[in-house]
């Protein structure tokens, strides 16, 4: 017998010992970061960067496959007891010796996860991790000239790049409301002092928003530079248009953060994605009834919210709990009770 077969037999036997739990349920008690466990990380430190941004130092579990500069990671954090998932750019270089990685988070107004991480996260806390991902990365072949065009927290993936790979000729244009809002400001100025970076800060509170036409003046040779841009949609749209106009769009790489902004309304178009049906629903009819009327096979039970026999994934949009008025927004893994939930705007139910 091969060793793999032997190991799988041994594991089967262990499963018989622990049934109905799994051996991992017990191993998680002592070693949640071990190889083979669901990927998790432990917050080891939280360093404030600005008044509303902080860098979180995370020790990832043994299953972490490493990242490429510029990539992001999805993390699952328990906020007020509820597990919420968000994506953040990795800001640590890929060759960090201690095996830790960092993300840098800016607290958004009403941002549940970002405010929790910046203001309340405690070292020692376990978080859930996905493997890093994203195409906003540096190429294998070194470009001669580089431009980083960033705004606000759009600097985070670029900081991962700056810390990871040195180029001979790097220019950065970064927009932030005021000097004290510039994340990593000291480190950036150190790089400038070491002549490793040329930096232009645009302070939008005093200078106004960056007019992309000003690039000619700020970085005269911008069109010759391999450019990585990250920031709000307005800036990226303008950049894409500008680069296309000058026929150099292949030199521009952009990363868009898409905070899912759901505007909760009253009723909306409901899509039953598994069946491919779409119907209009008002804000008072339970989605279970909406589905059944549309001929969708819906699981059901008590029809009054007590048995949890009707729970179904909410893929997109938002729903309102008809008993409490509470709004639930779609996120991966979010299940809703269709018998006591109504559409709060357009939504997608996996049935």
């Amino acid at each position, binding site marked *: 017998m091969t060793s793999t077969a032997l190991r799988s037999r041994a594991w089967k036997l262990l499963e018989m*010992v622990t049934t109905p739990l799994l051996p991992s349920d*017990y191993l998680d008690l002592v070693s949640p970061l071990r190889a083979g466990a669901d990927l998790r990380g432990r917050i080891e430190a939280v360093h404030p960067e600005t008044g509303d941004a902080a860098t979180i130092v995370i020790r990832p579990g043994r299953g972490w496959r490493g990242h490429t500069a510029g990539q992001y990671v999805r993390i699952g954090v328990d906020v007020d*007891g509820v597990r919420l998932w968000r994506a953040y750019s990795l800001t640590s270089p890929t060759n960090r010796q201690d095996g830790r990685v960092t993300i840098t988070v800016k607290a958004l107004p009403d941002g549940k996860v970002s405010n929790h991480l910046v203001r309340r996260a405690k070292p020692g806390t376990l978080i859930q991790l996905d493997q890093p991902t994203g195409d906003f990365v540096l190429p294998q072949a070194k470009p001669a000239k580089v431009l980083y065009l960033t705004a606000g927290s759009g600097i985070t993936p670029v900081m991962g790049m700056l810390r990871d790979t040195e180029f001979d000729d790097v220019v950065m244009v970064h927009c932030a409301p005021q000097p004290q809002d510039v994340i990593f400001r000291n480190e950036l100025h150190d790089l400038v002092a070491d002549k490793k970076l040329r930096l232009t800060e645009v302070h939008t509170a005093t200078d106004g928003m960056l007019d992309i036409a000003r690039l000619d003046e700020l970085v005269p040779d911008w069109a010759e530079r391999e450019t990585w841009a990250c920031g709000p949609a307005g800036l990226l749209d303008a950049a894409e248009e500008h680069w296309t106009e000058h026929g150099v769009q292949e030199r521009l790489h952009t990363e868009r953060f898409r905070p899912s902004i759901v505007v909760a309304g009253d009723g909306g178009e409901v899509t039953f994605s598994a069946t491919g049906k779409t119907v209009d629903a008002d804000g008072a009819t339970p989605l279970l009834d909406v589905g059944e009327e549309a001929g969708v096979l819906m699981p059901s039970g008590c029809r009054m919210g*007590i048995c949890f026999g009707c729970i179904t994934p909410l893929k997109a949009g938002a729903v309102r709990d008809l008993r409490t008025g509470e709004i639930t927004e779609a996120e991966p893994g979010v299940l809703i009770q269709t018998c006591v939930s109504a559409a709060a705007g357009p939504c997608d139910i996996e049935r």
Partner: protein
Amino acid sequence: MTAIDPTAHLTAEQIEELGRELDAIRDEVIADRGEKDAAYIRKVISAQRKLELVSRGVLLFSFFPPAWLIGTAGLSVAKIMDNMEIGHNILHGQWDWMRDPKIHSTTWEWDHVSPSEQWKHSHNELHHTYTNVIGKDNDLGYGIMRVDEDQRWHPFHLGQPLWNFINACFFEYGIAAYDLELGKNLHKRRRKNPEFRARAKAVGRKIRKQVLKDYVIHPLLSGPSFLTTLAATFTANLVRNIWTHSVIMCGHFPEGVQVFERRSIKGETRGQWYLRQMMGSANISGSKAMHFMTGNLSHQIEHHLFPDLPSNRYAEVAVKVRALFEKYELEYVTGPLPKQVFSAWHKVFRLSLPNKKPKVKTPDREQELVAA
């Protein structure tokens, strides 16, 4: 359905007002539900796992009598925790709001021979929706006992104290049979129904796994302690079964608990549904440890009003619920465990015999029985 309706003094408006007041209690807990509650269930789960691990470890040396005693006691408590405070409550969806896939009603499996999926249907859906409605809620005597005067007496009921005792000893098997609706499905034709066969198979798989674990693998691992470990796990399962049976009997069987006619729930309002839950359930009074070991089902009334609220909140909710009972002049059936167990058993014995005086049946009631 008892001779005197204990809710007759309430007007329809009062019942709806009661419903609104109960909704407000629920909303208050939901608004406050958070980190502390999540930390509570995680702590309980972790404590249960550690206790089971240590107890099984001690049982490896169970040929040594003190080790047998400690290991068996520990395993019994661990099994009760798994069944009551953890399993029962997670399967109610009480912790689904945490969005932790490992502590979720759709993924949880318990150390019980009834697969959680089947139990959720018969318990959460049927029992909790149709609480104490004769003919709809089979928890009312599990289909083998007569627990209300209005249920028809049959000579079979003479043996119900014995059935109840056997059911208590092998309660988890009783539940599995009940979830399968075995009595109804053993007829030749239904036995072949593919849906029933699939469910029966699932139960068979769970029984096999549990029996293998408790009566083969762990005793084998104990080597020279094979027999003593076997006896220990058997005892732990027996203790767990008798304990859970006793607690659960106290929930709806004690004297003073009302049962309802099928007809009475037609077009039931939210207020009326709440009122039925209040009159159809009974509590057990006692210490914090007592509430914990019953999985907080000692707060059965509160659990039936709000089956999806986290169990650790029932104690605080109970104070407010009890005040409403007083305000609306309703009887809050509660008492210490021995008293409630005695009361429930007393009823089992009493109703094993036909009613002393034949009840005068109203024409409505006759029609109801014919229709049923």
